[in-house]
């Protein structure tokens, strides 16, 4: 291998890693706040890419139907629960959040499609359309078992991923998409061409993860989110609702995953089921960070990206085997460095 090839592989790997960073940080955020290991973030990223592709072609994306259906289910569940607990006063608010807001988003996007808005607007439309999905899924799927063990939540999360893949096919169809490049420029550094797309990916990864850190450090709601992650009971005793903190976390996480979907769509062809590998590889990065540390997660995700890039050069058939096998030594190393309390699963 020449140093040129190594440099190209390295740059490619860093760009891939930057994509993983966005998804991985969302995963860590959700896990710390809600204890859910949200496997479907990869699917959210893929759905964003598919949504953007449909918008590019002036078609109505399947996401519109998906969000509408989920909003109806979530609103029904919420209202049903409130009626059973006889908390009638809370029904209007519940309907606003679970039904009206998502449907407003759906309607707004739907109304904008025929106007053929420019690319930045289309990206914004795709992102805003994708953001309600995970909070709604949280309401439908995870909240009824919020007190379950991490393991139970994990099993449900894996099952949810499979449901989403099926829904993806139903709402988006089997065709793969590749969106138009966000930029066509490229720069030459020391004889190596770096595409503008790669730079954009890196910039976006830095901007969004940096933004998240600022949000944690400088806003009361950001601090409340961190507090919930550190000590749930303590947070509840301060009047911070873990469910609400969870919703904020899901929204933010979806935004990050959505951005990664937008960024990856011009580089790779995205199918309805492409999210799984994306999500899982990001997840390997998140585990390197111990599912807790954001800088660790970022480094881990970068490492996975670079490893994958070099592995695919040597033996592209085995790159996934290599990445996932890597998880075992990482978990072992983690189990010696992370102190976790013994979780006892009683029946």
């Amino acid at each position, binding site marked *: 291998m020449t140093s040129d090839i190594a440099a190209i592989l390295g740059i490619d790997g860093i760009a891939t890693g930057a994509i993983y960073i966005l998804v991985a940080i969302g995963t860590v955020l959700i896990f710390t706040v809600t204890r859910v290991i949200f496997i479907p973030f990869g699917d959210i990223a893929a759905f964003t890419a598919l949504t953007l592709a449909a918008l590019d072609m002036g078609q109505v994306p399947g996401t519109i139907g998906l969000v509408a259906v989920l909003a109806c289910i979530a609103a029904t569940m919420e209202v049903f629960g409130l009626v059973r607990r006889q908390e009638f006063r809370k029904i209007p608010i519940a309907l606003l959040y679970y039904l009206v807001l998502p449907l407003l988003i759906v309607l707004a996007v739907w109304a904008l499609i025929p106007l053929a808005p420019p690319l930045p607007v289309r990206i914004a439309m795709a992102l805003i359309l994708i953001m309600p999905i995970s909070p709604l899924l949280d309401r439908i799927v995870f909240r009824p078992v919020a007190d379950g063990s991490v393991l139970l939540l994990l099993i449900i999360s894996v099952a949810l991923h499979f449901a989403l893949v099926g829904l993806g096919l139903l709402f988006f169809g089997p065709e793969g998409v590749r969106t138009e490049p966000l930029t066509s420029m490229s720069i030459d550094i020391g004889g190596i061409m770096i595409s503008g797309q790669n730079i954009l990916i890196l910039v976006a990864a830095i901007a969004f993860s940096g933004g998240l850190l600022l949000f944690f450090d400088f806003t*009361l709601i950001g*601090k409340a989110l961190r507090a919930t992650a*550190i*000590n749930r009971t*303590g947070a*509840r*005793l*301060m009047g911070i609702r873990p469910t609400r903190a969870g919703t904020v976390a899901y929204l933010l996480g979806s935004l990050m995953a959505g951005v990664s979907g937008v960024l990856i769509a011009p580089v790779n062809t995205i199918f309805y089921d492409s999210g799984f590998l994306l999500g899982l590889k990001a997840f390997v990065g998140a585990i390197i960070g111990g599912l807790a540390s954001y800088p660790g997660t970022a480094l881990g995700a970068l490492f996975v990206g670079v490893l994958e890039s070099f592995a695919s050069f040597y033996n592209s058939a085995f790159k996934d085997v290599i990445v996932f096998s890597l998880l075992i030594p990482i978990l072992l190393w983690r189990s010696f460095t992370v102190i976790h309390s013994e979780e006892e699963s009683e029946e």
Partner: protein
Amino acid sequence: MSILSVQNVSVSYDKVEAVRDVSLSIDEGRIVTVIGPNGAGKTTLMLAIIGLLRSKGNIYYHGESLSRFDVEDRVGRGLCLVPERRELFHDMSVFDNLLLGGYGLRDRSRLKSNMEKVFDRFPRLRERSKQLAGTLSGGERQMLALGRALMSDPKLLLLDEPSLGLAPLIVREIFKTIASLREAGVSILLVEQNARAALETADYGYVLETGEIVQSGPAADLIRDDKLIETYLGGR
């Protein structure tokens, strides 16, 4: 007018009843203490009042039943629990811990003035405001837990074993603070194993044994009760 009235409350874990048919009440602006041995159900009772544990029976706050309110609703109404385990946010600074104590304040401008009041009450916290809560000593942690609770302008403070694991000198300081809170108009339910200190501070006392109230009366009377002295106060 009692601020809190607990009526025939029972709490069970699976099949074991940890609190059985407990009734007690707290008058506005008073300190009421519940004393009793380890495992008597004191903490369970506190968790039931704040809503972290489900209970049978009725709990009224300002005459309004709390049964339909969850923990966050109760906190929003002015109840505040300082739990036995403190439940601080260890990886956050003292300042942020206090700030989150005021999370529920409608009037955000009170955050600053309340923080000043807490710092005046516990100057040690002002010195350490940048330090992580996890690096504080036991006494400082208890001060922080109390301070964090005071940030929300509570009407009824539930204190679970505030003297737990603290050196006598600090215990004295904590109880002085508790007594001074009464002056500020806060009603307090105090659960303690340190029976003597609790009874010296409180207006009224209940004795809880194996989940049941076995005795109650004005604190001044209880502290002179022969049987209690023998069991909890370590002889004469």
